[in-house]
C-alpha cells in the first residue's frame, strides 16, 4: 500500500496498537483492583469476631452470634450488625466445626441447585425469594414458621422446612422436596446464617423495615 502523507487516523497499525494498549491498561487495572478486593472479601477470623473487628465477610463462627440488619446513618443504608453470642442448634461451634459446617452447607447449596430457583446475593433465578437475608426474614424471626413446623427455634424450623418443604407450603408455588438430609439441612441453615452477615452495601434495601410493617406498622419512616 502506498501511504504518502496518509493520516495516522486511518492507519490500521495505529488502531491496532491503540486497541492493544487500551485493552492492556484495562486488564492491568482490573487485576490490580482484584487484588485489592480479594483482600477485602476474604473471610475474617474467629479472633476478629471476638474482638469486634468488622469484616465484610465474617468467619464461619459468626453462626455463634446474633445477627441484625440495621440502618447506618453514616453509610446511608442498612448494614449487618453482629451482636451477642447465641446458641446455634443449641450449642457453640468451634472454629473447625463451624468451618466444616459452612463448607458442607455451601457444597449442598450447589449440589441441590438452590440458585436455579432462588437468588443468592441477588444472583440466580427469579422463581423464589432472594435468600441473601433469609436468616433475618420476619417469617422466621416472628415465629410464624416455627409454629407451622412445630419447632422451638428458628434454626430448627428452617432445617425442618428444608428437609420437607412441600409439607409446609405457604404459597401455591411450592419448594420441592430435594432429598435434603438432617445433616445437610443444618449445614444449609449455617450457610444461610453466614450469608446474612455479609456486608452487601445495603442490598436488599429497606429490608429491616419489613419486620415493622408485618407487625402492623407502616413502612413509611
Amino acid at each position: 500500500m502506498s501511504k504518502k502523507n496518509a493520516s495516522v487516523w486511518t492507519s490500521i497499525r495505529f488502531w491496532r496498537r491503540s486497541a492493544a494498549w487500551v485493552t492492556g491498561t484495562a486488564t492491568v487495572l482490573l487485576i490490580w483492583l482484584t487484588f485489592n478486593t480479594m483482600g477485602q472479601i476474604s473471610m475474617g477470623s474467629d479472633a476478629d469476631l471476638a474482638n469486634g473487628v468488622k469484616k465484610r465477610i465474617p468467619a464461619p463462627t459468626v453462626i455463634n452470634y446474633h445477627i441484625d440488619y440495621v440502618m447506618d446513618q453514616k453509610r446511608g443504608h442498612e448494614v449487618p450488625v453482629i451482636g451477642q453470642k447465641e446458641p446455634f442448634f443449641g450449642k457453640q461451634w468451634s472454629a473447625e466445626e463451624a468451618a466444616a459446617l459452612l463448607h458442607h452447607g455451601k457444597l449442598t447449596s450447589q449440589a441441590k441447585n438452590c440458585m436455579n430457583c432462588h437468588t443468592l446475593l441477588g444472583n440466580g433465578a427469579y422463581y423464589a425469594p432472594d435468600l441473601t437475608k433469609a436468616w433475618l426474614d420476619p417469617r422466621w424471626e416472628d415465629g410464624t414458621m416455627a409454629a407451622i413446623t412445630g419447632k422451638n427455634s428458628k434454626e430448627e424450623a428452617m432445617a425442618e422446612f428444608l428437609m420437607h418443604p412441600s409439607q409446609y407450603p405457604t404459597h401455591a408455588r411450592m419448594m420441592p422436596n430435594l432429598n435434603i438430609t438432617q445433616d445437610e439441612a443444618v449445614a444449609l441453615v449455617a450457610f444461610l446464617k453466614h450469608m446474612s452477615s455479609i456486608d452487601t452495601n445495603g442490598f436488599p434495601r429497606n429490608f429491616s423495615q419489613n419486620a415493622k410493617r408485618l407487625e402492623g406498622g407502616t413502612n413509611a419512616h
Partner: protein
Amino acid sequence: MEPIISMPVIAPNEFLGIFAVSTMVLVLGVGYAALVTLSKMGYLSRKWIPVSYIFWILQAYSLYDLSVRIHSSPFTFKVLMIAMLAYLFAPHVYFYLVEQAEKRYSQAEEHR
C-alpha cells in the same frame, strides 16, 4: 472516605420516569449519530443536520433530567455533562474516519 455516589431512596412513583428518561438518552443518542451519518453520506438532505443537533440537545437534557431523578451528587453530575459534551463530537469524528479511510484504501488492490 465519603463515597462519591450516594445511594438515595427512590420512591415507587419515580421509577417510571427514570426508565423512560434513560431510554430517551440512548434513543436520542442513536438518532443523533444516525442523522449526522446519513446526511453526510448523502442519503438524507443536509437540512437534517440542524435536526440532529436538536436531538443532541434533547439528549443532553434527558441525561441532565436523569441525573436529577436519581438524585446524583454534584460530582456524578459533572462527569455526565462532560460525557455529553464529548458525545457531541463523536459522530463527526466517526464520519471523518470513514471518509479518510475510504479515500486511502479505495486505491488498494481489489478485494475478494
